[in-house]
């Protein structure tokens, strides 16, 4: 089967999923799709440009805020575009500061930048409602139906995932991989490394923003926790759990973490411990992620090595 055919089969299977699930589980599946998009947007930077960010929760949530706030004034599709645009602008701003660094410093810097967004959302009460957040009224008409929303998210997600796939396989994406492996060599070859990284950062931010806009539809509510650090950490963990550099592994990562939370919290209140242990185990046992690990075990493909 060709890659395109297996991708089509996968999407078809996902499209049929709601017929097998209760409304509640359709909601969970919707959430998984949205967070898989967030994790993929992180993977574009982490897996293909070698820059691991901890600010994508903030970028994602900024879009959610903008969508919910502006939907009071403008039509929903425009509001969603505004959200994605805001996320792109924010990513541009962050990128300008962060792309000069790499490795752990990049991580730390993006973490700090994300914190600023969180602080602003918490404090700018006149606009963001502060701690209490903002209620939306987006789930009107056909959007109120859980299955309809799922299909919308799936359709949008398929297009976005395909776009990310194209991006990382384009000449631009190949240059990024070159930068990941050896920035100095790429510089010597005449590539403007900083500009490439900045563009990658903005592209990644736009995708995270699209995920955030979909989250606005799903959650119909936003508060500072949506832009807080744990959101960025979870997004990154999903990308890693799936397999950094595998792009679509993010779906497995998101399903693992959200599914785990759903089922574990029915058994115990100690969800933070389970999440923490999962992170520790992932780093020690399977830093190449589920998809990477499976590929390595079956020998069908070289392990990507995952996060370093």
């Amino acid at each position, binding site marked *: 089967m060709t890659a395109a055919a297996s991708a089509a089969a996968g999407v078809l299977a996902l499209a049929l999923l709601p017929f097998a699930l*209760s409304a*509640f589980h359709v909601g969970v599946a919707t959430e998984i799709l949205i967070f898989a998009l967030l994790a993929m947007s992180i993977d574009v930077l982490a897996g293909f440009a070698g820059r691991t960010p901890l600010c994508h929760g903030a970028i994602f949530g900024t879009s959610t805020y903008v969508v919910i706030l502006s939907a009071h004034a403008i039509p929903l599709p425009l509001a969603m575009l505004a959200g994605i645009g805001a996320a792109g602008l924010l990513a541009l701003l962050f990128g300008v500061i962060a792309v000069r660094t790499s490795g752990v410093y990049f991580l730390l810097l993006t973490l700090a930048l994300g914190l600023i967004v969180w602080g602003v959302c*918490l404090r700018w*009460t006149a606009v963001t409602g502060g*701690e209490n957040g903002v209620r939306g009224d987006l789930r009107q008409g056909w959007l109120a139906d859980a299955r309809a929303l799922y299909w919308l998210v799936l359709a949008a997600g398929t297009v976005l995932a395909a776009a990310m796939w194209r991006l990382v396989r384009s000449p631009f994406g190949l240059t990024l991989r070159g930068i990941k492996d050896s920035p100095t060599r790429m510089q010597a070859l005449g590539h403007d490394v900083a500009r490439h990284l900045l563009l990658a950062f903005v592209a990644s931010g736009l995708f995270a923003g699209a995920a955030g806009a979909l989250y606005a539809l799903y959650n119909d509510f936003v*508060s500072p926790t949506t832009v807080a650090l744990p959101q960025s950490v979870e997004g990154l963990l999903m990308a890693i759990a799936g397999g950094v550099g595998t792009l679509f592994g993010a779906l497995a990562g998101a399903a693992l973490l959200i599914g785990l939370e759903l089922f574990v919290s029915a058994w115990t*209140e100690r*969800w933070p411990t389970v999440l923490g242990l999962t992170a520790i185990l992932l780093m020690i046992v399977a830093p190449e992620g589920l998809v990477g690990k499976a590929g390595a075990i079956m020998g069908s493909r070289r392990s990507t090595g995952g996060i370093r």
Partner: protein
Amino acid sequence: MNRRTLLLAGAGGLAAPALVRAQGTGPIRIGLLAPLTGVVASGGREIVEGFQMYWESVGKRAGGREVETTVEDDASNPDTALQKARRLVEQANVHFLFGNLLANTGLAVANYVRNTGTPYFIPVIAADDLTQRSRIPNVVRVAGYSASQFSRPMADWAFKQGWRRVATVSQDYTFGHEQCGGFTQKFTELGGRVTQQFWHPLNTADFSPYLGQLANAGVDAVFAMETGADATRLIQQYNSFGLKRRIPLMGSMNATDQSVIRTMGTEAEGVVSVAHFAEGSTNPATQAFVAEYEKRHQKLPSLYGFSHYSGALWVAEALKKVEGRAEDRDALLKAVRETELAGSPLGETVRLDGYGNPVYTAYVRRVERNARGQLWNVPIATYPNVDQFWSYEAEAYMRQPSYSRSFQGVR
């Protein structure tokens, strides 16, 4: 025992007529949302304790049916609260929801049940507008209070002490804006002046910058609207900077709640606040509740535990009226709204006003040490019939804007 006999044993007795009506088979399912992890985890624990304590005291039955409670952790996070509420309503098929502690979690869940119609009872979520300007028919504040309800009698009491200039210091979010608004509006209407208002972010580590300004503000008293760790820190630092000896400190009801003062020392003694519940009251009903709570949980009850015990009692009374038909949402909500609760630990009959918020006797309370050396709140003055509008006419009052940083009702 096989599954069938187990069911029969559980549903036996009074449940039989309910089975005949073909409506109300099986237990009444309640979803309780409480923060068991995160910043306010201790309050969440007490929500569960108070709630379960009531149901255990009546053998987990109401209106002739068995009652089954599913507890979900909202993690002190509105997104999680929303996710868990969905799960309780859509998957566990609960008949109604209860709980939440932080306003943001409560508002998120309220926004969700607005569309599902699930009854949602909120003994701790105090946001004024949930029972004022933006009421949701299926959200009822049983055994709860609205944020600005008790800070008005606080202002009246302060004025009677001869204090004319007061500064407020408060957490910068709706709950704080509303409590301070109630205080400020009443105090300025009486002829006092609120000279300064300090708004600080939640979880302010260091209060010293504010304390320095308060020391030089030339005020007769300070009103502090604080919850949780901020309350502990403010009271502690107010004392260590020597302000306590110079300027009397009034707290919001949460600032001197058991959940705050039980780990504190002399620095909390003498702080005054207003609430409907005072664990140091000599009222026999209150003392019986406090003794029972302490026996079970080795600590004095906080507002969280008390409110959820009373809230459970309230809804149980209503379930009795509708003969356990929790499925009939409209009948249940109507019964809850009409219930006049006589047996609550407050030792007075409590009812809801026309907008779904309870009317109470309010107590001015002072933190004192009891015979066993524990700190608790002892009533020193009483205001009967305090509802969420108090001296204002409800409709006229609601035409003024909601309290916010910029609108504090100053006259």
